[in-house]
């Protein structure tokens, strides 16, 4: 176990270095590079820019610059926004709760509904339900999230007065029910793709578990089919789902960005697009790095949880 953990954490550190290197390269791809902010100020001469570059250490070799940038990231100094000079990390963390609220609710719907559909599909393989679920999941994966959001708003906000068309709460209200009411639309929209993904994986994992020898043994012992399916097959089929939660995080985050745009949800996705349209590169870069690091840690966490839950991994 300790050996596995050390190995896995070492891998994550290497990955973190690579991720940050990619972030650094993207930062320097920006028009004007890290100096874009100053290049926009009127009356700024080439000599001024060169002086600032020297002050900021931008005339030094790239590996040294990278290392300084990376160590600033580690100490939490992520730079300041061009727009309001607020520290980037503080801006991001202030938008994080709204996005997490959306992601967690969508994930809950996906986990419950998707796993149910997946298990039922695997147990009654090739039944009408299974076929419909399979085709439905493939269509759900083909629907653009933003378009589905527009359709939901059109039907449930514009035609039927059931759901608010956007934002996180009604100004002046802000009760729990008000928050929940605003959450329904975006959470369902974001959940669509996730339900499809979770049902597909759950079905495959369950089918895999059912085909194992220990299931045949359990059946041969004369255990009731329900006990075999739930206590033997399902328990084992759930293990890969822990990994899936980590693996699917980029998709969920990307989906949240689009959903937030359609529903004017004040989370990281809106922040990202707003900052992009203002060419507020420090915030854009910060969000890019923040999301990648989040994904990296989620994957590490998922693998650790998986190892804790599965003795087969723990012992190797």
């Amino acid at each position, binding site marked *: 176990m300790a050996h596995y953990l050390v190995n896995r954490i070492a891998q994550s550190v290497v*990955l973190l270095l690579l991720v940050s290197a*990619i972030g650094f390269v993207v930062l320097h791809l*920006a028009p004007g590079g890290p100096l874009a902010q100053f290049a926009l100020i009127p009356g700024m001469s080439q000599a001024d820019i060169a002086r600032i570059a020297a002050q900021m250490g931008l005339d030094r070799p790239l590996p040294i610059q990278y290392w300084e940038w990376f160590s600033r990231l580690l100490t939490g100094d992520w730079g300041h926004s061009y727009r309001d000079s607020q520290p980037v990390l503080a801006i991001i963390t202030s938008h994080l709760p709204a996005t997490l609220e959306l992601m967690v609710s969508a994930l809950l719907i996906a986990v419950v509904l998707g796993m149910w559909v997946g298990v039922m599909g695997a147990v009654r393989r090739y039944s009408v339900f299974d076929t419909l679920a399979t085709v439905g999941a493939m*269509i759900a994966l083909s629907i653009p999230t933003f*378009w589905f959001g*527009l359709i939901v708003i059109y039907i449930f906000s514009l035609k039927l007065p059931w759901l608010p068309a956007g934002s996180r709460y009604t100004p002046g209200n802000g009760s729990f029910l008000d928050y929940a009411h605003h959450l329904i639309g975006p959470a369902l929209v974001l959940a669509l793709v996730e339900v499809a993904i979770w049902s597909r*994986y759950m079905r495959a994992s369950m089918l895999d578990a059912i085909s194992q020898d220990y299931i045949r043994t359990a059946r041969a012992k004369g255990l009731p089919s329900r006990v075999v399916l739930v206590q033997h097959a399902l328990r084992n089929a759930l293990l890969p789902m822990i990994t899936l939660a980590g693996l699917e995080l980029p998709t969920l985050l990307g989906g949240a960005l*689009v959903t937030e745009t*359609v529903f004017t949800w004040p989370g990281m996705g809106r922040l990202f697009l707003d900052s992009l349209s203002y060419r507020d590169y420090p915030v854009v870069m910060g969000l890019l790095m923040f999301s990648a690091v989040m994904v990296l840690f989620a994957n590490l966490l998922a693998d650790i949880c998986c190892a804790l839950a599965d003795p087969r991994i723990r012992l190797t």
Partner: protein
Amino acid sequence: MSEALESDLSFPDAVPLAAASDDVQRNRAWVRFRRHRLAMFGTAAILLLVLATIIGPWLIPFDQLHIDIRNRFAPPLVAGHIFGTDQLGRDLAARLFTAGRLSLTIGFSAMVISASFGTLIGVVAGYYGGLIGAALMRFVDAILCFPTIFLLLVLAAFIVPNVAMITLIIAATAWMEVARIVASQIATLRERDFTLAAEMLGASGSYIMFNELLRNAVGPIVVAATLNVARAILLEAYVSFLGYGVQPPAASWGNMLNDAQQYLGSAPWLAIFPGLAITLAVASFNFVGDGLRDALDARMDIG
């Protein structure tokens, strides 16, 4: 998105049986593909879409850029506009077909680029293994940590948004899955006897990689490439919808939806038709990809 299908894409046993000749293999795959109803539906829908975008604009008596202010926001089937008109009175059907040309072309070109690059990286990583292979695959892992849409939007904000550049950056964010699949395929094939035989006959590394190994990994690559078309069409729709993709007056399915958002209440058809077109195109490529996966896989009983 098709990231979800990634794990389904592993073909541990998809190596053609030595006994069966290539022709027999191909015949069997074709029979299996034809039996796959969704895949046949997808094929028909793709052909229809391609045909419609090629000849459609000729059949409609309106030019996609013809502005007719008196007939703005005409609902479908009014004044000869089968899908209605937009905020400038332009015929939606004509725009839809012309936009389809662009969206499908971008999807297809991005697939060719990303599949070729992904295959190249995958073959090199799988064949050499060791330090080079590990370094390449860790690089792939690192890029996959970034949510695709974030990365795509950042790159799109840095470039001049013309069609070629948009195709390139979509390809730049879509080659990693192909690389992973190819690398694992090649790594398995590399251990097989026919590779050893080729080495003993004195074949060079690049000959073995691209003539011996790659030929036997074509199945999974074709499947991944097909799914990549679906993915690229979706990604184009996302960036264009968010305003960083194809720029007006050129129409793509994505940027038509960008315009449609503000008229959602009064002219919902502006949003409905382009979205249906995207869904149909993406679903069709996903269906065909799924059918190909079943058809090309030597094992019959895949999920």
